[in-house]
């Protein structure tokens, strides 16, 4: 029958289309996927990337390789991904620095907002305000009064231009309306060393670096910069509880692909990211770092785009006001 033949042909065509559709989705990935981390291996961002990559490899059926392209405050690796092929085989895992780079670097060779396709948020690492053991103030209230009274006599350590600890310090000083003497270090490790050694007064850094020192009583802790208290530091008040609601900052991490990557590939990577964030080992390791994976609703392109846009605007105001720039 003619109609049957037409129906059959139509069905076959549809089936073929559907199959080619699935085939297209299943085609990717056919070779290892590289995730560029724009910082050196072993750091907190690298750790986040490696934990995620391990699970994504299993989900995608292809090795997800972490590649460290450090330098220039994370802008080198990001710039490399911005110009990479948009075939879904080169991705970028970057943190809060993605939103501060346009304000810190005047001649950035890429635009974080237009040169990348967002895949999803990953986690937001809380920060803690800590001081050397024998620093006078004992609570955040006392600290605020002490900083206001002594201002530039207090030394504030941070891990270098554009680091999370520098950003946190800027926010803290802005919230207090006071300046301290800032002392830059080459990364968090040396800064923490000098806090433990009592060489310097204050530091605000990620829980990745501070938790074990706080637990061991090597440093004095004042507050955590998240809305809720942390599981592994239950006695540490939040900044809001302790009377400084203006100091809210988390080192959020996101996954990006070069702009132009097809929605199918983004969707495939998104589902893989979601799988990784629901993985028990990832959740457990994140907890040890003092953080949790974002909810499934946030591990989406829309949520990351929104975060990037709002944070870029917020940090532009703060950084411009502080008059800090890298070039």
């Amino acid at each position, binding site marked *: 029958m003619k109609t049957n033949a037409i129906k059959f042909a139509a069905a076959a065509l549809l089936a073929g289309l559907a199959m080619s559709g699935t085939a297209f989705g299943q085609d990717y990935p056919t070779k290892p996927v590289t995730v560029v981390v724009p910082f*050196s*291996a*072993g*750091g907190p961002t*690298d*750790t986040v990337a*490696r*934990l995620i*990559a*391990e699970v994504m490899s299993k989900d995608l059926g292809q090795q997800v*390789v*972490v*590649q*460290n*392209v*450090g*330098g*220039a*405050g994370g*802008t*080198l690796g990001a*710039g490399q991904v911005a110009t990479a092929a948009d075939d879904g085989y080169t991705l970028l895992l970057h943190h809060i620095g993605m939103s501060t780079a346009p304000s*810190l670097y005047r001649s950035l*060779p890429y635009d974080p907002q237009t040169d990348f396709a967002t895949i999803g948020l990953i986690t937001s690492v809380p920060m803690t305000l800590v001081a050397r053991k024998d620093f006078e103030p004992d609570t955040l209230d006392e600290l605020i009064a002490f900083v206001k009274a002594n201002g530039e006599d207090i*030394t504030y350590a941070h891990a*270098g*231009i*554009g680091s999370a600890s520098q950003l946190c310090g800027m926010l803290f000083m802005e919230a207090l309306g006071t300046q301290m*003497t800032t*002392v*830059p*270090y*080459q*990364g968090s*490790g*040396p800064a*923490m*060393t*000098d806090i*433990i*050694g*009592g*060489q*310097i007064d204050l530091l605000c850094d990620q829980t*990745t670096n501070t*938790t*074990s*020192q706080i*637990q*061991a009583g*090597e440093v004095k802790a004042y507050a955590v910069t998240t809305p809720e208290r942390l599981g592994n530091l239950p006695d540490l008040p939040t900044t809001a509880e302790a009377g400084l609601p203006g100091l809210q900052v988390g080192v959020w991490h996101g996954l990006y692909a070069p702009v132009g990557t097809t929605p199918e590939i983004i969707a495939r990577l998104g589902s893989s990211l979601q799988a990784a964030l629901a993985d028990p080992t990832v959740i*457990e*390791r994140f907890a*040890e*770092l003092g953080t949790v994976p974002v909810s499934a609703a946030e591990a989406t392109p829309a949520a990351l785009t929104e975060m990037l846009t709002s944070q870029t605007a917020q940090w532009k105001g703060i950084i411009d006001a502080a008059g*800090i*720039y*890298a*070039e």
Partner: protein
Amino acid sequence: MDIIASLGLGFSVALDPINIFYCFIGVLLGTLVGVLPGIGPTATIAMLLPITFSLSPTAALIMLAGIYYGAQYGGSTTAILINLPGESSSAVTAIDGYQMARKGRAGAALATAALGSFFAGTVATLLLAFFAPPLARAALNFGAPEYFALIVLGLLVSIALAHGSLLKALGMIVLGLLLGMVGQDIYTGQPRFTFGVRELYSGLNFVSVAVGVFGVAEILRNLESEKGRDVMVKTVTGLWLSKADFRRIIAPVIRGTALGSLLGVLPGGGHILSSFASYSTEKRISKHPEEFGHGAIEGVAGPESANNAAAQTSFIPLLTLGIPAHPVMALMVGAFILQGITPGPNVINDQPALFWGIIASMWIGNVLLVLLNLPLIGLWVKMLSIPYRALFPAIVLFACIGCFSINQNVYDIYAIGFFGIVGYVLIRFGCEPAPLLLGFVLGPLLEEHLRRAMIISRGDPMIFLERPISATLLGLAVLAVVIAALPKFRKKRNEVFVEED
């Protein structure tokens, strides 16, 4: 727990066949990548991090630690055989080790390096076991002023690195210091001497500079003298040390071990100074300093011991306080965290099996390294019988691939070529590359600590004299200059005056 019981626990962990196996894999890999020019422990550990996911935390960390100190053994091999140091520490070994190799004594040089390293490793492991926490505490007394004073002392003492003109050596150190300043200023973010190239923002890569001024420059030097025959070492005389050799290396090995152990504990760059400091000391107190630079066995024994001792004791701040002393230790922090252990002061109490297991494994690793390396000496020396014309392209190639694998930065490759020609020109006109490398690694530290000390003191230079440790170190520096350099300067001045008349 007392130390003996703790060490017993450590050895019971480290002697587990699986852990011995991974320890062996670690030191073997370390030796191999140490031998391959260009590629060092940093790149290797970074590349192998994913593999360690599937291992138990203890096995993973034992293996990674093994790669690190194994590479210290291997790094001296290429420095001795083909004048190609892969790490700042082996740059010193290259000075006399390579000259020994050219005189046919590569075997003796390699054996000295292996034995010295083993002795140093054993002592440093014991130190680690018995005194890690108090040593780490003591190291925390070092702030920016102390590090600045220490580096000044190191620089002034290390002028002895040169065996030619003192002025040229000083010039090379200052040139090195300046080259170390290329890149983004950490205090202001201002890019310096970068020609607008973003790839240079994080500075010149040490491996590129070292491979350039030592390796490539040496190749260019060797290729100018080939006249129808191969350039290379004379016939190899003996693979092992003579009785006289043994007598000559004992004291340098002990002194090097002591120096290296102490400097290694300092998290702010002490380990970098260890081999340079040991070499300078040996040359200063030697009865025949004129042999240094022409194949003095003490010039291999001291620095190699110092370097290995420092490699072991640089684990002290990491294991007891969770503080990484240098980039490789920062990688180890990452490895700990990936394994679900946050390194910090509590590791020793919360994870005693891991803590003591790693310490015990270091000693076992050192035994394995000696067992592995002594038989290999014969093989390495045979490698010298490979015609040079087949060897040098491999050196160029390994250097390029190794450097590229560290950061995937092509400017690291261009830097090899640039410093190859710069090194070649400078060596042709009588300047030696070792002081330049010393300046290069210390330049950023010198500036960083000076500026930080001045910020902390609010611009008052008296901070260097008010703090006892830095005052002592600066006093020693002045003393070193007065005692050692004064007669030389006077003699030199007289010569100049005589000739100008």
